[in-house]
């Protein structure tokens, strides 16, 4: 009887030890191989998986030329984005927005003054800034929101517990929560993109699914030149040329989030 118990304890101890070591070995192995390298404990950057034609960059960024934005273009952009991504059209204050139109004075609280009423009342687009130092990723308790190596901040709709900490953390109001089942509010469902369930957070993902197929983000494609998308790390890229030539601002840069959506004004 005694030996039996001792043996049981031995096996149990080894099992516990093995279970304890396993994650550590995973931690060491991350980075190499084809498996997604999710940080076991701390949020870390995920490697990008893409097909043969995929567009790739070291650091994706967007430049918005506010002078080229007009009502028609902005409406088309919102329509295309929200249709492609099955964003529901929910009336009221529990709505969901990936890219939306708002006044410059709301976007750039600290950069405008009262003697430029026209500039303040002008409309522009707001979307996720895909910050280099994203507070949403920092606060997420499950790594359901994470950053890829190319800078895109993504959402795992199947892991999100709906605590909405990321929404408190985001200083740009770029995130939306599914207060209800969104499916009845989707006019035409795009089968290529997942619909969401109630109780999870969602937001713009810089069309990561299109980049993987070699396509530009949908908003850029229909923007008639108002939106430019490219590699911030490449000095020859279109975005870098625009940023070098023109005066640009970012939303609340003093917060240290390092937003990667630039506005030409």
């Amino acid at each position, binding site marked *: 009887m005694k030996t039996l118990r001792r043996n049981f304890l031995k096996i149990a101890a080894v099992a516990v030890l093995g279970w304890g070591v396993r994650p550590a070995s995973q931690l060491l192995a991350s980075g190499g191989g084809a498996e997604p390298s999710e940080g076991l*404990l*701390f*949020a870390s950057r995920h490697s990008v998986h893409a097909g043969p034609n995929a567009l790739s960059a070291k650091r994706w960024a967007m430049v918005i030329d506010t002078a080229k934005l007009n009502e028609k273009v902005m409406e088309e952009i919102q329509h295309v984005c929200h249709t492609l991504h099955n964003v529901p059209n929910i009336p*009221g*204050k*529990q*709505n*969901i*927005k990936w890219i939306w139109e*708002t006044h410059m*004075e*709301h*976007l750039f*609280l600290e950069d405008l003054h009262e003697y430029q009423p026209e500039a303040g009342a002008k409309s522009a687009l*707001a979307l996720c800034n895909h910050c280099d130092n994203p*507070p949403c990723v*920092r*606060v*997420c*308790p*499950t*790594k*359901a929101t994470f950053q890829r190596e190319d800078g895109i901040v993504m959402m795992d709709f199947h*892991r*999100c*517990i*709906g*605590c*909405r*900490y990321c*929404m*408190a*953390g*985001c*200083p*740009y*109001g770029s995130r*939306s*929560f*599914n*207060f*209800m*089942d969104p499916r009845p509010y989707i006019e035409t469902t795009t089968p290529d993109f997942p619909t969401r*369930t*109630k*109780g*999870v*957070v969602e937001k713009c993902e810089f069309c990561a699914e299109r980049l993987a197929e070699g396509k530009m983000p949908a908003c850029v494609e229909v923007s008639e030149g108002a939106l430019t998308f490219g590699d911030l790390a490449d000095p020859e890229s279109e975005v870098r040329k625009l940023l070098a030539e023109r005066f640009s601002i970012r939303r*609340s840069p003093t*917060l*240290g*989030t390092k937003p990667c959506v630039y506005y030409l004004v």
Partner: protein
Amino acid sequence: MLEKAINGSKVYWGWIAFLLLLMSIGAACYWQQLSHGLTITGMSRDVTWGFYIAQFTFLVGVAASAVMLVIPKYLHDYHKFAKILILGEFNAVAMVILCLLFIVADLGSPQRLMNVLLHPTPNSVLFWDMVVLNGYLLINILVGWVTLEAERKQIAPPKWIKFFIYLSIPWAVSIHTVTAFLYCGLPGRGYWLTAVLAARFLASAFAAGPAFLILVTYIAKIFTGFDPGKGVLPTLGKTVVYAMCVNLFLLLCEVFTVFYSQIPSHMAHLQYLFVGYHGHGVLVPWMWSAMIMAVVGILILIVPKNRQQDNLLIIGCLLIFIGAWIDKGLGMIGGGFVPNPLHEITEYVPSQLELGVSLGIYATGFLVLTILYKVAIGVKQEVE
């Protein structure tokens, strides 16, 4: 010892039945929330945390108050507190259970709750809040139960329990500090982005928590004849009033910093709460009521003579408790989200179903509290 909970008077069983009724109302409301989502609440895209998270924040403070008994008893040998120590510890147990229930009620996808353990993320303060809250729950169950059992057998509690009693002191501070860190580390939320937040949370906790303890001890005294001992509650009342003074002082520090610096994104929230902002001010009457209650409560309890009188002590504690509840349970969370980072104003008022769920959760917490207190007081009276 648990058998003490199933031996009670008609009043006891009536109270239990009443709580069970409230719990079933809460369960019915929660069923609505589970089927339709958080849309049944008053929350919105701009105000993403509401009544649930505010109650959690407030109750963490009430839970932490046990330390205001443990410190005098174990670090200063103030043995008069020995008799009500167990009430503080069991109160902490019930309050932490309430906190956890409110967090779960607030989740959009509660079925995925275990993801917090499956994908541990130490860079999230929520992860640490889970660790410290559950830790504090276990410590207080352990300490409360072991010391009570020893008391029943009329032997000295085992020596090893001392370790957990001392551990409970910094742990109590940690639960409210980490809870404050949930908020004060967020860029773009001016109302919370202040280093005094954790200190203010602790100060208001050490006012509201002991005030609650005093009130429930009086209730226990009425229904069971439990005698806390002469001068015990007035002494605890001193803790209440001093802590509330510190809380008000820290609030004034905040008001000075915000309004003398004149930084708009920090001023907007206090303006919204106390005078209204661009015509919106649903919380203004509440906040002023809280301030008046806090000040009147302090004026009553700061006079040592008043603390000796049962009626004045009860009124003072009620005022301070309700004042702190409004400040944290209504203003702290709602005020932080209005205006939003784009300087747009969406106000928040909890919905009836949301309040129904909260009622059910509170009833659950009080059920736990009642049962634990029944056991504790039963044991004490048996020994006597």
